[in-house]
């Protein structure tokens, strides 16, 4: 019963100065709602950025690169302590590009867990020619179905169909800007010249727009069989194998798992795009720093209000102590007030933060394929914001409450 008495006293304190309580609640509400808004916005930005980036980026890339630049065929033949070796103008002569046994690798990868999609590519630098115009770029021979699984390329088509490449063996799909540069429309013909000097004509069967400028300006898709034919490679050849796994943050452990099976270089997207990782990490840090600052300021506000309240009520605290309320009771009374302010403010703040985020999500923003400012909600942000809000209030309320519990009634009552 004594406990409920303390809570009743706290209730009277809270309700008798409703304006002050309201301001304190508002402090927490503001902090929590800003925390939720900032984080949802940053998550939205990161997600939009990633969605854009992973349109041209697989989680893991397998490729073959001659990285042996220290090979010395003579060193093992002579006594190096007595001989000085100098090979001038050294060149690699037995180096094969690309992956020769690609289907074996693909089936090995498909057997592992966590794989979402695997796709082979035959990439080659070429010149695109149309009449007198000539543009250099990359032609990418792809397996249409798995390529679409990987990048959702079919969604980026603005003219023609992705699957046209299956039906038309000599069809080609161009990036939007590339097509514009060359002045080409659908069903026009285009000449492709490889670095080996092979030249071949294709028919434009589609145009895509990825919103990644470099891609739209330089890239063209062929059927993988047509690409192999173009560069004169066998039917099991691929220059790259792209793999998507279930959780793209898990690339390191996945690469460890498949590395023994594959005699080529394996690269995760994080290694290939450190600036992407750094960007999203930095944005997260900013979001957390800003929202914690807001919560801290709100905490100071509550600390001030609680201190003020306690100074105002110092006589009453003394009288309650004289009547037999212990320091613990006094502490309970004021901590209960802080708690109510915290919980109430946090819940209202969560709702307000959700509302603000929804409103911001309506603001038009039409750059790089976006329509409005991106917002992405995560349950953990809401939980953290509410927890932080309540915790901040509790700490901010604890210090003045402790001070209140230590008030010596005699000093106050004697005046």
């Amino acid at each position: 019963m004594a406990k409920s008495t303390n809570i009743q006293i706290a209730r009277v304190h809270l309700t008798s100065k409703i304006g002050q309580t309201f301001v304190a609640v508002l402090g927490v509400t503001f902090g929590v709602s800003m925390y939720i808004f900032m984080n949802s916005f940053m998550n939205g930005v990161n997600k939009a950025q990633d969605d854009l980036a992973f349109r041209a980026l697989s989680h893991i890339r397998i490729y073959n690169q001659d990285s042996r630049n220290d090979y010395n065929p003579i060193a093992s033949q002579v006594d190096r302590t007595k001989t000085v070796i100098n090979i001038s103008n050294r060149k690699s002569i037995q180096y094969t590009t690309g992956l020769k046994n690609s289907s074996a690798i693909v089936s090995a990868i498909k057997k592992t867990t966590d794989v979402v999609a695997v796709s082979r590519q035959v990439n080659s630098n070429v010149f695109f020619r149309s009449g007198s115009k000539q543009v250099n770029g990359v032609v990418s021979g792809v397996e249409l179905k798995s390529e679409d699984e990987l990048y959702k390329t079919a969604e980026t088509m603005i003219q023609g169909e992705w699957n046209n490449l299956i039906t038309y063996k000599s069809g080609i799909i161009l990036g939007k800007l590339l097509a514009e540069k060359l002045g080409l429309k659908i069903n026009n013909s285009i000449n492709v010249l490889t670095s080996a000097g092979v030249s071949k004509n294709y028919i434009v069967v589609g145009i895509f727009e990825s919103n990644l400028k470099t891609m739209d300006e330089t890239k063209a898709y062929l059927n993988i069989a047509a690409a192999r034919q173009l560069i004169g490679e066998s039917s099991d050849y691929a220059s790259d194998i792209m793999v998507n796994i279930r959780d793209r943050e898990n690339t390191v452990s996945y690469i460890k798992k498949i590395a023994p099976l594959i005699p080529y270089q394996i690269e995760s997207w994080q290694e290939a795009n450190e600036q992407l990782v750094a960007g999203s990490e930095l944005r997260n840090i900013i979001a957390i720093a800003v929202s914690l600052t807001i919560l801290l300021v709100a905490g100071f506000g509550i600390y001030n209000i609680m201190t003020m309240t306690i100074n105002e009520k110092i006589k009453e605290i003394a009288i309650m102590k004289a009547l037999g309320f212990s320091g613990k009771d006094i502490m309970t009374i004021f901590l209960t007030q802080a708690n109510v302010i915290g919980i109430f403010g946090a819940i209202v703040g969560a709702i307000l933060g959700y509302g603000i985020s929804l409103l911001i999500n309506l603001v038009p923003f039409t750059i790089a394929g976006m329509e409005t400012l991106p917002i992405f909600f995560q349950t953990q942000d809401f939980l953290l914001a509410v927890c932080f809000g309540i915790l901040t209030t509790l700490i901010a309320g604890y210090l003045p409450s402790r001070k209140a519990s230590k008030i010596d009634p005699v000093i106050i009552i004697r005046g």
Partner: protein
Amino acid sequence: MEKAISIEIRNLIKYFYEPEKFQVLKGVSFTVNKGEFLSIVGKSGSGKSTLLYVLSTMDTDYEGSLHINGDMLTGKTQNQLAAFRNEHIGFVFQFHYLLPEFSALQNVMLPALKLGKLSVEEIEYKAYESLRLLDLKGQELKNAKRLSGGQQQRVAIARALINSPSVIMGDEPTGNLDTKNSRAVQDIFKQLAQEYGQTIICVTHDPDFANNTDRIIEMQDGLILS
């Protein structure tokens, strides 16, 4: 019949340190019997209020010993003393000191709610009774700060009585009351002492009040004169 001892103090010495060291109580000893109605008088600065606050257990910074109802209270912790006060001591302060945001009734009920020995209904009934006894019928639900000074003081007295404490202490308990109400309070105190054996100690300046008590202790310069 030998009377039971309610309060016993031995060789009470107390110093004030602000603004400079000064001995307020210079070795005070006396006993108060159960059911005794006692007044402490003396000029201001004689140490009578200081003595009362030591007796009240709120002031623990003294030398000597204090027993109430046979319990040694010197050396107990603040929280133990708070619990003891709640159950055994009722207070009436010089400046009445109610909680302004609570109604008269709530103010009276508070110590009993804290003690938690009776149900809320019983406490409420008791509080209404006490307030009626002190001529405050009709004022029960008013906020304490809306009452006049005299009414507030009577509410404070009702509050001091709610837990039926064995000792009631007052610092000028009738200081804000007119003669009629002052008389009424004195009668109530007398009745409590005689019928219920509650010990009552009041510091007062009012000679009428003092003369109406069983015993007068007069203080001067930190010592008991008589």
